[in-house]
């Protein structure tokens, strides 16, 4: 008789043993991250202003800044990040399986995602809404006039669902033309495969500058949905959830208190007790999260406050030129509001 299956058996049982042995209890994400030395951050595979590699292959964008902020809080080094570009289909599995520690990939906060997918949304980096972009040649000024249009959509996004809802509610017809990536979507729009491109308005702004003739495209005024975009972590690790959440809040609070990457060192001597608390001068709020006292100082000095990252990536200092709008702080007419550090 043969030994062949002997080998097979050995292989399979060894494999089983290896797998079985390594199935240890779930370690805390913070400890894993510390051991690894980098934060693994899931980002978009190329959306200017949110996350896209620049000419040197360095990742840039507001989603990327969130990753850097978390790394600054954990390691005191904003560059200790390993970026994992993910497409829309892979993103949740990658987070669920532990391939990434935090998913910062213009992901909309919805009930399904928060409850049945085993995820936790740590906050909102960007309040967005779904809009429509059309070619000026079409002579359309409102979404109401789009009955019968062919619409380019990216697959697997909330926009795919919103547009179906909206057109049904307004008793209009449309042909959904669905693409896998945002690049293909904008390509389809450019080639005239569809009349309309729909996505979050911020993305539309980013995609518009990718067109060969951006001036010929316009974004319609209607916004048909709420799209709060923010970083996501796995359920079941509250410490890590807190770290990501408060990294974001630290940047918002810094803007509110007038602390920026330029003046953070002067602010260390500030008389304002709120500033002192945030920068860890007279108290240690990092301890509760397993971080050092200067966690927020590291974020602000290396990454900046919310206004800085906004302007740099999507705001007036960027090619996207998106107004702050509802993303202004609450005391400036917007809805960005961070709980106090106390």
């Amino acid at each position, binding site marked *: 008789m043969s030994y062949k299956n002997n080998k097979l058996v050995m292989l399979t049982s060894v494999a089983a043993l290896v797998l079985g042995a390594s*199935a240890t209890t779930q370690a805390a994400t913070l400890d894993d991250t510390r051991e690894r030395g980098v934060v693994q951050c899931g980002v978009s595979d190329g959306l200017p202003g949110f996350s896209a590699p620049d000419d040197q292959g360095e990742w840039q964008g507001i989603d990327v800044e969130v990753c850097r902020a978390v790394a600054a809080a954990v390691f005191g080094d904003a560059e200790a990040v390993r970026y994992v570009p993910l497409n829309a*289909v892979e993103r949740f599995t990658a987070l669920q399986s532990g391939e990434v520690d935090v998913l910062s990939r213009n992901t909309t906060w919805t009930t399904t995602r928060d409850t049945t997918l*085993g995820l936790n949304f740590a906050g909102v980096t960007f309040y967005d809404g779904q809009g429509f972009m059309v070619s000026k040649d079409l002579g359309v000024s409102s979404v109401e006039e789009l009955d019968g*249009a062919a619409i380019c959509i990216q697959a697997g996004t909330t926009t795919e669902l919103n547009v179906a809802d909206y057109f049904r509610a307004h008793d209009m017809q449309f*042909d*959904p033309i*669905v693409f896998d990536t945002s690049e293909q979507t904008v390509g389809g729009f450019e080639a005239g495969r569809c009349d309309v491109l729909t996505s979050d308005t911020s993305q539309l702004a980013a995609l518009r500058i990718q067109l060969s003739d951006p001036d010929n495209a316009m974004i319609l005024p209607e916004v048909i949905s709420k799209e709060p975009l923010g970083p996501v972590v796995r359920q079941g690790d509250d410490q890590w959830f807190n770290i990501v959440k408060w990294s974001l809040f630290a940047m918002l609070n810094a803007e509110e208190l007038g602390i920026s990457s330029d003046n953070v060192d002067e602010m260390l001597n500030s008389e304002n007790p709120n500033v002192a608390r945030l920068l860890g001068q007279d108290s240690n709020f990092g301890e509760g999260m397993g971080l050092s006292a200067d966690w927020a100082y590291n974020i602000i000095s290396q990454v900046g406050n919310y206004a800085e990252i906004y302007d740099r990536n999507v705001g007036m200092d960027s090619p996207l030129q998106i107004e702050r709008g509802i993303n202004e702080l609450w005391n400036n007419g917007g809805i960005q509001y961070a709980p106090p550090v106390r």
Partner: protein
Amino acid sequence: MSARPKVPTQGPKPPFWRDPAKRALVFQLLLVAGVAAFLLTIIGNTQANLAARGITTGFGFLNDTAGFGIVQTLIDYSSQSTYGRTFVVGLLNTLLVGGLGVLAATIVGFIVGIARLSPNWLISRLANGYIEIFRNIPLLLQIFFWYFAVLRAMPSARDSMSFGEVIFLNVRGLYLPQPLFESGFGLIPLAFVVAIVASIALTIWNKRRHEATGKRLPAGWISLALIVGLPLGVLVVTGVPVTWEVPELRGFNFRGGITVIPEFLALWLALSIYTASFIAEIVRSGIQAISHGQTEAAQALSLPQGLVLRLVVIPQALRVIIPPLTSQYLNLIKNSSLATAIGYPDLVSVFAGTTLNQTGQAIEVIAMTMAVYLTISLLVSMFMNWFNARVALVER
């Protein structure tokens, strides 16, 4: 191993690890245990992972509202339909492109394969060029080529290419007139069925008569005339109970008629052209596998060239051709899953793409998708085995 000679029975009984039968049993038990351990570990891991991360499981999602639109549906579908229905829509779209692809690939493949053997040097070179170009370039690249390079270069809806003002071609697709059936139309499919039955009967009768008397009618042409002529005749006699809805430009797009979306066109063209290059090679080698003696003997009987092919070469060549042809058909159907790259709403694109993404239930969705392809594979190979057995019966 049964090839091993039996151990002589006298002498001390060999220890059990030298007894082939017992050893086989032990090894097989070990294999079963190993595989079971492996599967159990995976299942255990998965369950632990799903539980730890609070991911919903089960097939309940199939009854939930899908909420997204699909551009090409063969059955009624709206965004209010369920995820289960997206599965059916995707499946039907897969079958549509697969079926039409098999048809086109077979026709083109046979023509090119026979042209490859043409005594005409130029035609044979051209056929060879076709084969060598298309089978050595990845299918996905060909799909992209047709979709992004060729169909994207079509004019916009307002400057459509028009063929006699009834057929229009533009970047949004191909617009064909649609027949609208009125009452009394039922006679036409009936005539069609009658024509097909009559053709089959004629073919059988002709074959018997040929074997008995040596005389034969051109049954193929008569059948073709019947199948085309009879329904047409009925159409004329009953006063044409059909009107054609011609597509016309209304608003942004053409409305009315049948729309063939460019995603379908690109996928169908690429699949057919790619697979046809393989089928052509199969047909060529199948015909070449027939010994020259067969052809020469047929020629010695002074059969005309056409009949040499039809009565001697092709029936024998089919036996060689059919098994590899089957696997090409299967490949074509499996390759239609590349639809997802250009957004043709097939099973993988709609169900394993959008539905998976909206529900997040990867395991259930992927398992269902794989099961579909496995079933199609098994059904096609079962059918082809049956057909193969029938063709093989001709052999003595």
